[in-house]
């Protein structure tokens, strides 16, 4: 059984950066956004690692369809390309969280459809179940709908292929449990949570192989307009979150424990 796995993933500012919203001529954005270091969205990155792991097992192929501004795509790919083998399909568009998921999904679906020779009968679409920017959990489903795929799974932590071509999926549901489903086979959409794989170490050889395709792909990236005129943002703000922290030190452990227990029981 051979699979083609298309991973959708956008860019987000490095999670450890301070993010300050500000109005721009194109709507809301982040202060010094172009100066901020960016990474592949964390959940999309998990999806990419799972895709590479799966492709290795079935001799499949992985495409990474990534939407972002060219300059940031180029920077981010220097790292991402060293992780796992993939072929990049780049879409040149704003990766801001203050955009609409349906417009982003349209652009991603169009990019997927542009992949030459794509066989949808062996196609799995991977992506993060949410992003660390818009954090809506809505894009992958729309991509699936645009591609006519009605077997969809979100919050996925595991996929197991069966010998008959079917596969089992574990999806996160409420209460810290997984729903177990079996799908008869591709095509399907899987929005990944964290999966079970650690981040792969950088492999310069993989990076060199990937970069042969990555750089031309970025140069040839088609621009997409994802601005939604019907969506209006008001009053985007970072709420005051500074608390007056009371520091309790040089206090005997039993006293601390008593205080915490009283607080827990209130």
């Amino acid at each position, binding site marked *: 059984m051979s699979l083609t796995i298309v991973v959708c993933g956008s860019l987000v500012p490095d999670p*450890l950066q301070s*993010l300050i919203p500000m109005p721009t001529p194109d709507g809301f954005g982040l202060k010094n956004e172009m100066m901020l270091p960016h990474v592949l969205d*964390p959940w999309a990155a*998990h999806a990419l690692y799972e895709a590479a792991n799966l492709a290795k097992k079935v001799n499949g192929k992985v495409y990474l369809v990534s939407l972002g501004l060219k300059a940031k795509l180029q920077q981010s790919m220097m790292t991402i390309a060293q992780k796992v083998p993939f072929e990049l399909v780049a879409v040149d568009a704003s990766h801001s969280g*203050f955009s609409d998921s*349906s417009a982003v*999904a349209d652009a991603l679906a169009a990019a997927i459809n542009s992949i030459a020779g794509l066989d949808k009968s062996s196609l799995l679409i991977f992506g993060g179940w949410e992003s*660390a*920017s*818009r*954090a809506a*959990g*809505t894009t992958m*489903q729309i991509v*699936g709908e*645009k591609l006519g795929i*009605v*077997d*969809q*799974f*979100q*919050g996925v*932590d595991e996929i197991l292929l069966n010998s008959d071509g079917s596969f089992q999926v*574990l*999806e*996160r549901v*409420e*209460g*810290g*449990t*997984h*729903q*177990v*489903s*079996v799908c008869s086979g591709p095509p399907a959409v899987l929005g990944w*949570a*964290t999966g079970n794989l*650690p981040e792969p170490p950088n492999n310069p050889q993989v990076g060199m192989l990937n970069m042969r395709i990555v750089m031309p792909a970025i140069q040839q990236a088609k621009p997409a307009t994802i601005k939604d005129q*019907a969506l*209006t*943002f*008001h009053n*985007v*703000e970072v*709420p005051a*979150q500074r*608390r*007056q*922290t*009371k*520091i*309790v*030190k*040089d206090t005997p*452990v039993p006293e*601390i*424990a*008593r205080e915490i227990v009283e*607080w*827990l029981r209130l």
Partner: protein
Amino acid sequence: MEKILFLSHTEENGHLSPHALETLTAASRIAAGLGGELLVGLYGGSTGDAVQQVSGKTYTIEEKIFAVSRYATDAAAAEAICRAAGATIVVAPGTSRTMRYLSGVAARLDGKVDTHITGLSTEGGLMLHRWYYRQRMRAEIRRSDRPWFIAVESGIFEKFVGTGGTVESVSVVIDDKLLRTSVQGFKSPVTGEQTIRPDADTLFVAGAGWTKKQADGQTHTDNAADLILDFLKKSGASLGSSKSLVDLKGEGQSVLPFMTHLNQVGQTGSTPRHPKGLATCCHGEEPHVVGWRFITERRAINLDPNCGWAQGKADVLYVADAFAVIEEINKLLG
């Protein structure tokens, strides 16, 4: 006039969940605030009991096939109800089941979707509140496109008390193409220990410090595991973890055996809602800022009095050895 449709699946017992009833309150407020018509849409294995929990005109789809949570059939049911109701605004609870299909149905109806809604107002038109960049910034948004699909978070509104709905059945055709996925059941990833309790009063966050070398130069992971589990049992708290602690498992290091990615709070984890939070041995931004966004009262136990992430984020920071404090707490909790 706006037509506001409250849309929800029923639970296994045929009732609406508390989350759904809270969302129905949100829908009723939107309808009242906009002067619109409130409609109800329910689907599931059975809907009779749920109809008694709502009020007004209620579109229902009831069949065994809809008892399970599956994208293809859920989307088909939701699409049929939305079309029958002619809704301009669809309000649904942000459950895992709803979140799986809602944006797909919005796409089918050429609508727009917003999720994780944490507040709303109707003055001058509907305005929704939601968070961006992993709960770092809050925005108020409006849309002029319709239909507008909205998924509401839990714990925001009080539960709706209905007088019973007037049923109008909706039919939907399910062919074999929509049944390629079969739901096998549910699986708990933890071995014999239920550590995630969404309804708990307290979130206990365990950081990577629990698995590091202690004052005697040795790690005490087994002791840490016993202390944490004992605390969870006696306090009824839910267990969260920092990313670094969860990642240790994937890297093959000595870890707390019951800790999985499902416990993770923060950037790639959950942002749970609990009245109280107690962080132990945490040294990063994620548990204190992102994962704690919706924790009302926050306390931390940390050996470092200058821990920048606890200071300004927690209400009280206890500078002490978490092993000793939790052991003492467990004794007091009996």
